[in-house]
């Protein structure tokens, strides 16, 4: 696939427009108790070298044994990416020397990965969707960590991460802007979290991206790419792409040439800098790991895993649109996190879906964001919010009062229905009382009455006055109907 960007996504250079082309290699730590080839724990933290087996430390004579749970998780992820699952795959050794790589090689999958081609549909904005090709997903070991700040003359090595299972998910160069790249990673993270195959926690390094960036004139073949290694937040991914594309455009516009190389993004300085050139690139001498037989399983195993997959974001979104009548955008917002989607469904069950979505997205999410809270820590439960929606729906309270009620539930808690009773928040539906208020307002404002007859939209002013005089408790439909009758407008 070699799609071209919309003109709006092109970058303006001094000599014309440029298109940025991005492909990503996402390293996602597999959610599992034990490492890929040893029984050692994958727990984050702990003292240095707490979670290290003889295999992880590459002691002489130690052998890797595949952890089936990691294989299961990789297959489930592949299924979640609509990808081909390879019933036979091969582990290879990627050879290079580094102190935090105890074996002197990383066990990875080179020619025969466990997962082949797939695709991910990504919402870039409210009304733009792109399809990103997945080239492959393979399993590999993470390295340990070198610590250079612990001793005046020595470096220390922490092997806690050594041997932890990673899924490397390689995309096609199908992304055409930093926004698309960020949306892709966000979507991928959503899928991984739905599947429970990676916690997606970028702060802990559970998800890292190598970003391949090149630029070209629209319509031309791909340019030379640079790989920005190990970018560890979605915001940084966006920034790194922007500055790298600018850097490359600058060079090309000055008549220079892009050297294929590996670069690092420095968020502090807002620049990328060279790590190693193509000439310095390692010759990894890949070959099949003779300690491990080819990894094989049958289609029935894959089918059983497929049958046990949870509903994934795209399916859930489609269902929300179909079942609850939501807009694609609202549905997309709700399914971005499984917990949000579940919360919404609890609120929406047996109620007006649109109203439920409106309350979850606008009121609840707005309030949570303001407080910096996740949905899991919402002070208002789905049942409480559902009760508020019910109270509006059956006409017990007005929308305006509902917002006050929401605020009370948020800060004080309690059963919304009881709160409405106790605090006298019930909507006035007694037309006698409403009519009295309407008559008073009409009588007190003859000039406005004249204006309203000329300009019916003035009705809103009258509604506001009546609501004010009734403390917001008057039923707005009743107020509207009475006012229209009294003022003689349609």
């Amino acid at each position, binding site marked *: 696939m070699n799609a071209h960007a919309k003109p709006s996504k092109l970058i303006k250079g001094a000599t014309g427009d440029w298109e940025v082309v991005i492909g990503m290699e996402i390293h996602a730590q597999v959610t599992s108790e034990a490492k890929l080839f040893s029984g050692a724990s994958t727990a984050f933290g702990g003292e240095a070298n707490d979670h290290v087996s003889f295999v992880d430390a590459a*002691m002489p*004579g130690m052998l890797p*044994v595949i952890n089936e749970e990691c294989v299961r998780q990789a297959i489930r992820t592949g299924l979640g990416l609509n990808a081909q699952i390879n019933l036979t795959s091969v582990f290879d050794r990627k*050879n290079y*020397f580094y102190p935090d790589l105890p074996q002197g090689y990383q066990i990875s999958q080179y020619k025969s990965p466990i997962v082949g081609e797939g695709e991910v549909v990504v919402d870039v904005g409210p009304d733009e969707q792109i399809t990103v090709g997945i080239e492959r997903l393979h399993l590999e070991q993470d390295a340990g960590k070198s610590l250079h700040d612990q001793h005046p003359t020595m470096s220390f090595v922490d092997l806690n991460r050594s041997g932890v299972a990673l899924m490397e998910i390689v995309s096609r160069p199908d992304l055409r802007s930093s926004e698309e790249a960020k949306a892709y990673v966000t979507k991928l993270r959503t899928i991984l979290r739905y599947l429970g195959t990676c916690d997606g926690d970028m702060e802990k390094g559970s998800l890292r991206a190598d970003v391949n960036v090149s630029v070209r004139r629209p319509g031309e073949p791909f340019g030379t790419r640079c790989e920005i290694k190990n970018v560890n937040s979605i915001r940084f991914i966006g920034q790194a792409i922007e500055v790298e594309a600018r850097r490359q455009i600058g060079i090309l516009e000055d008549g220079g040439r892009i050297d294929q190389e590996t670069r690092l993004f420095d968020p502090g300085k807002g620049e990328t800098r060279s790590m190693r050139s193509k000439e310095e690139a390692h010759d990894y001498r890949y070959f099949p790991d003779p300690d491990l037989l080819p990894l094989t399983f049958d289609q029935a195993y894959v089918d059983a895993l497929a049958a046990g997959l949870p509903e994934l974001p795209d399916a859930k979104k489609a269902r929300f649109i179909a079942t609850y009548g939501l807009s694609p955008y609202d549905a997309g917002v709700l399914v971005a996190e499984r917990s949000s989607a579940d919360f919404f469904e609890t609120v929406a069950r047996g109620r007006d879906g649109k109203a439920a979505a409106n309350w979850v997205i606008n009121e609840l999410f707005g309030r949570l964001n303001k407080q910096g809270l996740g949905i899991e820590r919402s002070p208002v439960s789905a049942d409480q919010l559902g009760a508020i929606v019910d109270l509006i729906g059956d006409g017990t309270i007005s929308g305006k009062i509902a917002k006050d009620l929401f605020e009370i539930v948020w800060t004080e808690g309690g059963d919304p229905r009881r709160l409405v009773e106790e605090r006298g928040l019930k909507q006035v539906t007694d037309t006698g009382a409403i009519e009295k208020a309407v008559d008073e307002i009409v009588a007190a404002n003859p000039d406005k009455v004249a204006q309203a007859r000329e300009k019916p939209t003035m009705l809103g002013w009258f509604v506001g006055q009546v609501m004010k005089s009734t403390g917001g408790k008057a039923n707005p439909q009743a107020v509207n109907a009475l006012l229209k009758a009294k003022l003689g407008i349609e």
Partner: protein
Amino acid sequence: MTELTSLTLAEARDGLRGRRFSALEITDAHIAAIEKARALNAFIAETPDVARQMAKASDERLAAGQGGPLEGVPLGIKDLFCTKGTQTTAGSRILKGFVPHYESTVTSQLWRDGAVMLGKLNLDEFAMGSSNETSAYGPVKSPWRRPGSNADLVPGGSSGGSAAAVAARLCLGATATDTGGSIRQPAAFTGTVGIKPTYGRCSRWGVVAFASSLDQAGPIARTVQDAAIMLRSMAGHDPKDTTSADIAVPDFEAAVSRGVKGLKIGIPKEYRVEGMPAEIERLWAEGAAWLRDAGAEIVEVSLPNTHYALPAYYIVAPAEASSNLARYDGVRYGLRVPGKDIVEMYEKTRAEGFGKEVKRRIMIGTYVLSAGYYDAYYVRAQKIRTLIRRDFEAVYAQGVDAILTPATPSAAFGLAEMATASPVEMYLNDVFTVTVNMAGLPGISVPAGTDASGLPLGLQLIGRPFDEETLFAAAGAIEKAAGRAELPAAWWA
């Protein structure tokens, strides 16, 4: 005491069970023999304290009637097997002083069955060699000498310490490993029996790796029966080694006297190599005649890709070794030679830690795996490997039960005799044995006679996958016909 060291493993086992002597007595007899045989340099580490402790524990179990299949039997352990609490060097300077915190599966099974460890046996560095001259702990001298000569001979390699110790009656049997012939060639050179079982029969867990797809552990002993007894304890499925086979271990000992009546034995014409000494040719024919006389049918067979095996082996084995030995970097254990930065530390550590032959193979392996050469060397060698396996499959499909070949192209050569030869001449020692590793098959070397100067010569039998029993039966028949191998006179004591 001498007589205790001259017993076969089977005789010793039975004597121990019958309480005719104690485990401590037979262990002490071997400890004394080892002390007197230091001139052979068969051991890198003697572990008399460990041995006596184990022997005492064996005696207690024997007294309680709880002895295992090898209860109280003193053995030597090739220093490639990691032994918990006892230095394991792989014959290399880079692992000097390395004491594992774990026990290899094979040795732990021997201890489970009651065996006693006498010490760690010398070997070619990282099992790379055919004469035991590449050891960082000095060469092993063969207990054999040409009659009337004081010139030292090599015991073969890489399990030279194992073969020498068994032949010199320093232990009743020894563990060994075989990547291209490292059990069978030294066994042939020393008049002992050595079997490399089918790849996957013995766990590789805890055995220092040379070439993972070829390495296999096996025993060296003085009789076919002794080798069968040891192999039964060494073999078995190990979930810690993915390449270990989940196949039941039969009673190999029972197969030794089974006879060869009705067996079809193949004689591969391609093993009649150019320049083969007449005495090897004669021995081979004699072996075939013995088997025929014992009731086997002898047929000529063809293994057409045989002559590609050695070159292909010397691509595959170094390739895997270059990667397997990358872990010896001075960072976590073993030798570290400081440098101004990490790269210099690596370079100095590995320059000082590895010997010449190991470096040669690391360089060959690195080269054949490097970009641009991988397809030309490694991939083609793997294709040849497949062809070699198919050659054997085709022969076995014709109903052949085992294949008879010479074990080595000659008898033992003199120490340092090959020093000026090209490495390829040394590699030619493996010409009859590497095919077996390349195909993952079992192969046994059994003494069958001597050359003109009285040095031992061996025959090799190659079997179907996981059919070591037929090999024990056929080797048993040859042993019976040839008469049990003579043992060398104890010139060293």
